[in-house]
């Protein structure tokens, strides 16, 4: 088992190398660099531009810049943001909590809504619950996330029921701690709905199919024949077995914790990593982009590893290693 984990973690290294190399090469192909806007200002001395170019290493070819960056990363130094003059790790840590919060609430929404609905829908295939949830799920899967985000912003602006973007109100600093919590919760409603709806629909479809499968199993017939109440049959015996395949999707959910909301954050003015990364990319603030790519890739690999482990734990037939 330990060997298996080690092997998976080792596989992370070549992948990170390849992905960052690709990102770096692509960014160097893009026209202009971080100093382009500075060059276009009329009262900046050329000597200062030359000095900045040298201190950023922009006067060297891109592969040399990449090698330097890689060397620093081996010492766990991910560089600093040229824009903010703050270490990249610190900058990401500054923005990550908001993104993490949003990802978790939308994941929570997806699971708490999808699980009971899926079981109820599968219990009576073709019944009214099944029909309504299926129709709603197809509808939700068909709407692109960014469009839903735009709709939500438009709705908020029209009705005034919800804040238009942000995580806190203007007077957040002056509120009591309990009102501050309420304030954040209030701001989270819309982004959570937008980000979570697709998750609800996807989980619902997968789980419904699983539950239907498990319902055919002989032990379910046995449980029913034993005279167990239907509620116990569905939620204790069927659900537990139907959940197995969903465990493997946790990995992807984990990978999306910090990067999945990039689009929604930008449309909804949400103060998380998404906006930081997007702006860094537009400004060609290289190390911030690379840092976020590294975080995203690592989360993907670790997430997949975790879901494999969870599967092994929940299903004794799955064994890794030898």
């Amino acid at each position: 088992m330990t060997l298996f984990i080690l092997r998976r973690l080792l596989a992370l290294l070549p992948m990170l190398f390849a992905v960052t190399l690709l990102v770096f090469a692509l960014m160097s192909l893009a026209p202009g660099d971080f100093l382009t806007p500075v060059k276009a200002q009329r009262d900046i001395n050329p000597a200062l531009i030359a000095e900045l170019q040298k201190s950023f290493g922009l006067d060297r070819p891109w592969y040399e810049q990449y090698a330097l960056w890689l060397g620093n990363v081996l010492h766990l130094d991910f560089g600093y943001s040229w824009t903010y003059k703050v270490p990249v790790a610190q900058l990401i840590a500054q923005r990550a909590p908001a993104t993490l919060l949003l990802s978790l609430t939308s994941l929570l929404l997806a699971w708490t809504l999808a699980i009971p609905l899926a079981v109820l829908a599968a219990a009576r295939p073709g019944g009214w619950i099944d029909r309504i949830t299926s129709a709603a799920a197809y509808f939700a899967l068909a709407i692109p996330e960014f469009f839903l985000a735009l709709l939500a912003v438009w709705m908020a602006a029209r009705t005034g029921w919800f804040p238009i973007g942000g995580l806190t109100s203007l007077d957040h600093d002056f509120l009591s701690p309990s009102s501050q919590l309420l304030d954040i919760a209030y701001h989270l409603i819309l982004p959570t709905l937008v980000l979570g709806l697709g998750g609800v629909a996807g989980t619902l479809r997968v789980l419904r199919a699983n539950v239907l499968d498990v319902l055919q199993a002989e032990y379910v017939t046995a449980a029913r024949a034993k005279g167990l109440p239907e509620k116990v049959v569905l939620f204790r015996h069927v659900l537990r077995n139907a959940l197995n395949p969903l465990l493997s999707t946790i990995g992807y959910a984990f990978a999306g914790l910090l990067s999945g909301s990039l689009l929604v954050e930008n449309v909804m003015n949400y103060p998380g990593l998404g906006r930081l990364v997007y702006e860094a990319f537009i400004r060609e603030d290289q190390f911030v982009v690379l840092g976020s790519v590294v975080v995203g890739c690592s989360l993907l690999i670790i997430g997949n590893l975790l879901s494999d482990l969870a599967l092994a734990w929940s299903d004794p037939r799955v064994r890794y290693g030898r």
Partner: protein
Amino acid sequence: MLRLCFLLPLLATALSSCTPKSKVAREKHPLPAGVDTSKHEIGRQGGVFIDSTPGEPSTFNPLVSEDATSSGFIGLFLDSLVHNNPVTQEVEPGLATRWEIAADNKTFTFHLRPGVCWSDGHPFTADDVVFTFQAIYDPRFPNRAAFDLSVDGKKFTIEKIDDLTVRLTTPEIYAPFLETVGGVGLLPKHELESAFRDGSLLKAWNVSIAQKEPRRLLATGPFRLRSYQPAERIVFEANPHFWRADTQGVRLPYVDYLVTKLVKDANASTLAFATGQTDAEGLSPDNVAWIDQYATRYGFSVFNRGPSPNTGFIWFNQNPGKDASGKPFVPPHKLAWFTDRRFRQAISHGIDREGLVRGVLFGRGQPLWGPETPANKKWYNPNVTQYPFNPARSMELLTQSGFSLGPDQKLRDRLGNIVEFTLNTNQENQLRANMATAFKENMRDLGITVNLSFLDFGTLVGKIQDSYDYEAGMLGLTGGGDPAGGISVFSSKGRLHQWHPNQKIPATPWEARIDQLMSDQLHTLDYPTRKKYFDEVQKIMSDETPYIYLVTANAYVGLKDRWKNIRIPPLGSLVWNLDELWTPLITP
């Protein structure tokens, strides 16, 4: 579910009514001995001023700041020796109450305002001024100010005379000395000296520190930082040690808090104002009409600031050089057109600027004939050569230069080449793209074919400044301020001398004359003499038309009506006297 629908609006109203209505208690400190008394209308303390800005501050450290957003925020809390009043364009006392200029015109003695304290109560003295200049000139900390505060690469010297007197000496006579010094935010020695010693000064006062320990960003200006939430907002509060008061001895600023929403882009910022969420917003001409419809609903007014300092122009690449492979940047026959003054003048006469103002700016602007717009009252020269719309005059000039119109209605030069060129501009600016299209139409009437190429800003700057591989360009520059700011444009050695940058020796006699004038104006302190020199620069620029100036848009500001005592400057920040602003209605 129904119940939830009821609950949400309720929750919303409950939350929005949590705003503090009670009077905010301020720290009480005695006014400094050298208090500056505002001569304006007396107001009342209280209120929250809300505005928004596209993007984020990248730092709160003046040595690091290179963008207007960061510098704007820094200017709220770090004060300087003198202020440039953008309304009068005069230099006014700031942290120095008065100054003397010695007979050599190179030695400036500043007398500091007595009794001023930093926002932590520590006294502000000459040591802070000396420390600031040491930090700026220290080679360990490359920064923009170090270049602004030197003449021909030579630094100014600074010495402390006593606790409240400093003397600055420039190596040569340096005309914009007071204006430049006016922009230098002074740093607190007692707070930043340790960072200076261990070489980490550029890392001080970064966004991370601003978020965690906002009070460490010490202030001498009207506000001090209260909190910074990345991508959300910045809250400044009244600095309880600020050195200005009204005639009744009430300390300024009147407003308790200054809240800036950080939004994604300029559109979001404009939208926030149009929906009544913010108190002030700079508006572009194409937004004025629709925003004005909401004026009564949200209680704001839109003010016309007059012409903006932004210039827009077209130029031809006159660079005679060749690229690495020996291919000329511009084909020789085209270079011959572009370097012909009559050709450029003919183009200028062929542009319908009134039409551009009407069609692109909705009448909210005016034709532009020279490098400065009327916004720069102090330096603008109205008597430059003008090229009113006159296609007949264009044809006359072109005929003199040997061009002729063929039977196919296409213009040809004397060698029979069809006159055709590609105009490059950046795709991000919609107004500019519209003007390029109108220009193309105007040129077609002269028999000239213009191809338009809309490029990414980075690509365009690369062509103009590095590869020189283009025929004509269209861009804008923000003018205004002291002529010294334009040296990189006007001087033939300059980086932004776009039609032919970085010349070793001036290519033409008129460029040599401009070089001489720009150098002369820099080395005298006498305003009328400088004005005379700079007037001539503007005249030459209009005669030779290396830049074919187009139009300048008016600038507009929207402001909520509840604010009293407003001074809107023609240039720079939306409101010049934030500290004197007050409102009879306290709740936002």
